[in-house]
């Protein structure tokens, strides 16, 4: 065990001076001759015990913030959800139409397609971004001279605007773009195609851009997780004769479970609500082959003026994200406990 680790684990705190807490005994309102008014603990926010403790702001001061949070984050979307049950066109009076909008979602091939594409994109993205992010993290966790530079290079796309990134990729995917030119250059002319104009490839092009942009983000979270994997464990396993794959399977990956939970939850949610990449690369085309729930919300609401119908698609999307996000989190947490 290294000296650094030993110090970290057995730090002796007994020699430290006692923590001075403001507002505790001897505070300004408790000096000699001070009139002591009785104030309930819920108002002062004082900790229990006659000696008092860390003084906190009274909880009711948080009420304004909580009300604001509920109002902005929950009430507004929930009240907007009412429109999902109307035929509101954005300007005229909305008429209540029950579940008609949701029936239309189920009956319309375009909406069913959007639902399917959303699942395909989110599922593939979840798997690929995890795999690529983890591989990058494992590779860059080694003692390489250029590792910090490489980490920055791989993470850089994550801080760029998805729209800007997608417009650049759009040029690369055009018939005369970099990808077809590269294929031609290495003698693979037969593989040249209209990447974004072919329904069989367009959705995978969107996926490539999503993974390219966010794999670095996953890498950073995994790298943070890898910092918590003690070198001693790896060293002990090596002494015991464990090979690389065995060490990865039995030591590294189980200890990365919390990082995996975070990455998978974040990426699942961003995959389910993908909009920018689709909007910039294909606009949902060709012939609806890359439409997702998010692009349909935009199309129905702002292009076709069907605010009620757009709200119903948004509601379906919200429910899906909530259910899948929570289910994924619960599964990953239980997995963490098992490990």
């Amino acid at each position, binding site marked *: 065990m290294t000296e650094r680790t030993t110090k970290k684990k057995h730090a002796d705190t007994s020699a430290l001076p006692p923590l001075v807490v403001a507002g505790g005994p001897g505070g300004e309102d408790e000096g000699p001759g001070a009139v002591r008014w009785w104030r309930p603990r819920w108002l002062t926010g004082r900790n229990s015990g006659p000696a008092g403790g860390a003084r906190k702001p009274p909880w009711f001061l948080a009420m304004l913030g909580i009300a604001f949070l509920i109002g902005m984050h929950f009430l507004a979307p929930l009240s907007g959800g009412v429109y999902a049950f109307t035929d509101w066109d954005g300007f005229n009076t909305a008429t209540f139409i029950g579940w008609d909008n949701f029936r239309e979602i189920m009956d319309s091939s375009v909406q069913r397609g959007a639902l399917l594409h959303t699942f395909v994109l989110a599922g593939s993205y979840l798997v690929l971004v995890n795999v690529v992010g983890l591989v990058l993290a494992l590779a860059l966790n080694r003692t390489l001279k250029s590792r910090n530079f490489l980490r920055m290079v791989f993470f850089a796309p994550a801080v760029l605007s998805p729209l800007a990134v997608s417009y650049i990729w759009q040029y690369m995917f055009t018939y005369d773009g970099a990808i077809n030119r590269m294929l031609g250059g290495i003698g693979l002319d037969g593989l040249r195609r209209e990447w974004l104009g072919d329904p069989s490839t367009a959705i995978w092009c969107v996926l490539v851009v999503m993974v390219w942009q966010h794999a670095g983000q996953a890498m950073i979270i995994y790298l943070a997780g890898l910092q918590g994997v003690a070198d001693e464990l790896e060293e002990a396993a090596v002494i015991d004769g464990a090979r690389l794959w065995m060490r990865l399977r039995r030591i590294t990956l189980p200890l990365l479970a919390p990082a995996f939970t975070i990455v998978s939850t974040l990426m699942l949610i961003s995959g389910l609500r993908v909009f920018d990449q689709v909007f910039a690369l294909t606009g949902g085309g*060709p012939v609806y082959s890359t439409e997702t729930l998010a692009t349909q919300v935009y199309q129905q609401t702002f292009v076709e003026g069907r605010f009620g119908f757009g709200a119903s698609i948004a509601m379906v999307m919200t429910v899906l994200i909530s259910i899948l996000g929570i289910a994924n989190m619960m599964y990953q947490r239980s997995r963490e406990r098992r490990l």
Partner: protein
Amino acid sequence: MRHHRRTRLGWKAGAGAGALLLAATACGGGDGGSSGGTVTLRMYSTTTTEPAFSVLIDGFHKSQSKIKVKAEFIPSAKVGQVTTTMMQAGNPPDLIVASPGSGGGSNGLSVHRLAEANRLADLSARPWATDLPELLKPTAQFEGKTYSLILGVSTQFLNYTTTDFEKWKVEPPKTFKELLDMCGMIKSKGMYAMASGAADMAGNRMRMQVFSAANVYALEPDWDKKRAAGQVKFQTSPGWKKTFQQVQDLVTHDCYYPGSAGRTTEEARKLGASGKTTMGIGPSIAAAYLSKANPDRKWAAAAVPAGDTATPNLPLEVSGISVAKRAEHVDEAIAFLDYLAAHRDVYSKNSGAFSPAMMAKGELPDFLKPLEPLAKQNRFSLAASTMWPSEAPAQVAYKYMTGLHNNTRTVDDILKAMDQAWDNGK
């Protein structure tokens, strides 16, 4: 104790800053409003209209000092979104760039829809309100009242490079068959006739307008009314079938530069400017772009040889501007419209459009002079979807038209989807 004081001080400072922020917000009052007797009008318009509106707004500011116009130019699709959101919030821009007619146009905001919802000021009393060719009146009016100032109209035509055509000693095609034959000839020269941006709405919209004007509206000017009455359908209309069949024929005859289905209209124009294609279908503004992008290549206009008639119709896309009924400064906004009405020639000159007065006289701008014989015969029709009940059938058509380029949809698929969208939106 010091920490306690600091905490209190922090709370006080925070509360003070919050109060100041609230006060500042309350006094700010947003972008528009009045200050020192000057009124500021707000408007949002598309980036393509910026050259024209900038000149007009400058002129308006010089003509008086009491009213200022603050215009923001954003992508076409965003205009509808921003304007709608502001209207719903009860804070509409004073001036609304809505699409004349009922279809919704390129920004999804139609004059009829807004007028029906009582969101537009009645402009019927203005002297220019009825000063319009008969064809355009229904686009500006709803239930007998005028809600839009028609600024100008633009048309789609065939751009061709005189640079190449003179070199090859050929004339622009007069019939659709000649156009198809010419595609083969141009390909033999190592170029393509046209570049199509079929991945977005704009390119498909232009093609649908041009071919339907020749095949549908030139023969049956009241087709839209018949469709609304249920007397005809897209699927049973020979004209509509031919409209999309001609687009398909252009694809199968290798008229288009490869890769249309995944290309945007903007990228297609770049191919024209770079000399990879020799023709294009588009509005005057596209012709202006081509000339500016590559001054070595000269361009000229001809009618698109679609349809069987010797005199195809010119499809008209109408531009207008309205005043929000619940705007902060309705009277001042109407005063600005009065100024615009008197300077529609300036709008036309700077936007590639032509004014309703020119249209009534059968005159066209210099670049479009070759099309003037058609204008003299009043061979105009409103662009398809201008007077449709909603934008939905057109949106479906634009999406499905991409399928003609990658062979995933047929002409019948498009017509069926359009009928469904029309019937659903009734």
